[in-house]
């Protein structure tokens, strides 16, 4: 075992002195002379067709510099994971012909003060013809459900299929050989990251044509690339300043403030600040996604899981954001750190008319781990083994192949269980103490 030099030590942060003296500069602490303030007009409807956006009264309001709508966005349709090949572009920067969730951005009012921007935002008139909304994954997949996505399904399409599939071994044959068929239904609700610092962005147009962008994104270069695509400018024109994030937890990886703030700055030629209220952070920032997971496991009397069949439904909300990727991660991880020779997975990335879901601390994987581990306890109870035993019996070993065809090469479950048992003074039978992650040999 390598000796660890950092674990167990209290390490002083590089930015620690700034933090403890209150001098660390967060985005909302950035201010420029002549700076304008942005306030977003958001959709009051969960789903509907936009018949008219009338900004004239807001534009005429004293102190308003401009109102930004989709017409001002050079590339209005985007999806942030286009950078890794996710398509199609399904989300407008500002709503264009329809709204897909309550809180969707429609028009940005830019004014001399934040108060004026807020007052003028109330004067923007948006006529929306309501359409039936889909609010739940089961509802979205039910026959006759309103189809809310342009490509004709309410699911992300993975290589032409409406779900991410994993097929490994022969699940049905193994179910026939199993002593127990053990089912479990699990669900995880969406939840909000609630960072103490809300989303914020300040953009200053420079005389040389560049834009200085102060961002609290967790993914600065990701944001730069997407902003460049949306603005149709080369990325060297964007001087991104970031790195200080007042809590992110996955809630600040979507590119939701920089493009609109940049357009407002370009349109007015003045610095612009956009900071979200706490209410906006709850109602309009992405959340984690909700999950519904249905497990069927085939288990032998000795505790071995010989087959697992899972149908998982992920509530992505209205747009892709990071969800298609999250569902793929989910599919790869719902086996847990266990060896299961027959696996069958259908995992759906489902669209509904709720605020978009996105990244949140291990998104896709944490719901899989939750379901898989509760299922382990259920299996242990059913076959009459203790929860430690069921995990040792099924623990994966180096050299084995997981359902996603990846060879295990970093297994530590057995050693972790042994160490954990020792820490809590839980006696383990000799046969489990003798096990290790390298004791598996191909038959």
């Amino acid at each position: 075992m390598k000796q660890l030099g950092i674990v167990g030590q209290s390490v002083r942060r590089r930015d620690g002195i700034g933090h403890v003296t209150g001098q660390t500069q967060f985005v909302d602490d950035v201010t420029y002379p002549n700076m304008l303030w942005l306030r977003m007009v958001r959709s009051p409807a969960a789903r509907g067709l936009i018949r008219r956006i009338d900004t004239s009264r807001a534009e005429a309001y004293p102190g308003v510099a401009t109102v930004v709508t989709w017409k001002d966005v050079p590339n209005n349709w985007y999806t942030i994971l286009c950078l890794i090949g996710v398509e199609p572009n399904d989300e407008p920067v500002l709503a264009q012909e329809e709204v897909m969730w309550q809180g969707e951005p429609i028009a940005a009012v830019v004014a001399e003060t934040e108060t004026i921007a807020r007052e003028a935002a109330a004067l923007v008139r948006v006529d929306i013809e309501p359409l039936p909304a889909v609010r739940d994954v089961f509802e979205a997949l039910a026959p006759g459900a309103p189809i809310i996505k342009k490509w004709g399904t309410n699911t992300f399409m993975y290589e032409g299929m409406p779900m991410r599939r994993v097929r490994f071994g022969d699940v049905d044959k193994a179910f026939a050989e199993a002593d127990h068929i053990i089912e479990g239904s699990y669900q995880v609700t969406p939840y909000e990251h609630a960072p103490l610092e809300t989303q914020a962005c300040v953009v200053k147009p420079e005389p040389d044509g560049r834009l200085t962008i102060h961002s609290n994104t967790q993914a600065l270069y990701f944001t730069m690339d997407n902003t460049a695509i949306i603005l149709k400018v080369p990325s060297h024109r964007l001087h991104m300043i970031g790195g200080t994030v007042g809590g992110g937890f996955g809630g600040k990886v979507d590119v939701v403030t920089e493009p609109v703030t940049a357009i407002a700055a370009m349109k007015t030629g003045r610095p612009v600040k956009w900071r979200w209220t706490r209410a906006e952070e709850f109602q309009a920032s992405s959340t984690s996604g909700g999950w519904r997971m249905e497990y069927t496991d085939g288990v032998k009397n000795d505790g071995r899981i010989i087959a697992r069949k899972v149908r998982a439904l992920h509530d992505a909300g209205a747009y892709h954001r990071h969800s298609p990727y999250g569902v793929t991660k989910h599919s790869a991880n719902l086996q847990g750190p266990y060896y299961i020779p027959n696996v069958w997975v259908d995992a759906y990335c489902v669209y509904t008319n709720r605020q978009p879901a996105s990244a949140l601390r291990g998104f896709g994987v944490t719901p899989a781990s939750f379901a898989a581990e509760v299922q382990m306890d259920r299996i242990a109870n059913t076959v009459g083994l203790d929860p430690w035993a069921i995990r040792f019996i099924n623990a994966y070993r180096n050299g084995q192949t997981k359902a996603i065809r990846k060879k295990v090469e970093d297994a530590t479950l057995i050693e972790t269980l042994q160490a954990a048992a020792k820490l809590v003074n839980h006696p383990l039978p000799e046969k489990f103490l003798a096990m290790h992650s390298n004791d598996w040999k191909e038959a």
Partner: protein
Amino acid sequence: MRMVSFTLNGKPAVALVGLVESLRDVLREQLHVHSVKAGCGQGGCGSCTVLMDGEPIVSCLLSAALAEGREITTVDGIGTPTSLHPLQQAFYDNFAAQCGFCTAGMITVAKALLDHNPHPTRAEILEALSGNLCRCTGYLPIIRAIEDAAARMDGGR
């Protein structure tokens, strides 16, 4: 609008404030005291905590007009990078700040606690911190830092 005068970190401060303008907004937007953070605007997170005559208050809920004649202390008045207060040193040494957004409020509350009660129990520390949120969930190092500071100060300030 009215003129309000108060003492800010030991120096006189004057601001022209609206009827419903909060002390937080006056400190941040007019006086550029950016250590006072805007987290929720509802008194729920404690990021904007300042001391008024030595007592911690959430400055987002206090009308700035009510600061007239009072003594306001922010974390800037507690210590600086070249002259850290023992509380700040203890927060630094104990990794009691992650993203840093709640830190000034935490230290400000802790300052009031140790001023009144130089040797608090853990329960008293928890009670003092009960109005301050840390979403990075770094509470344990924060509590340890306050205990460490109390030990270092040994009843002093």
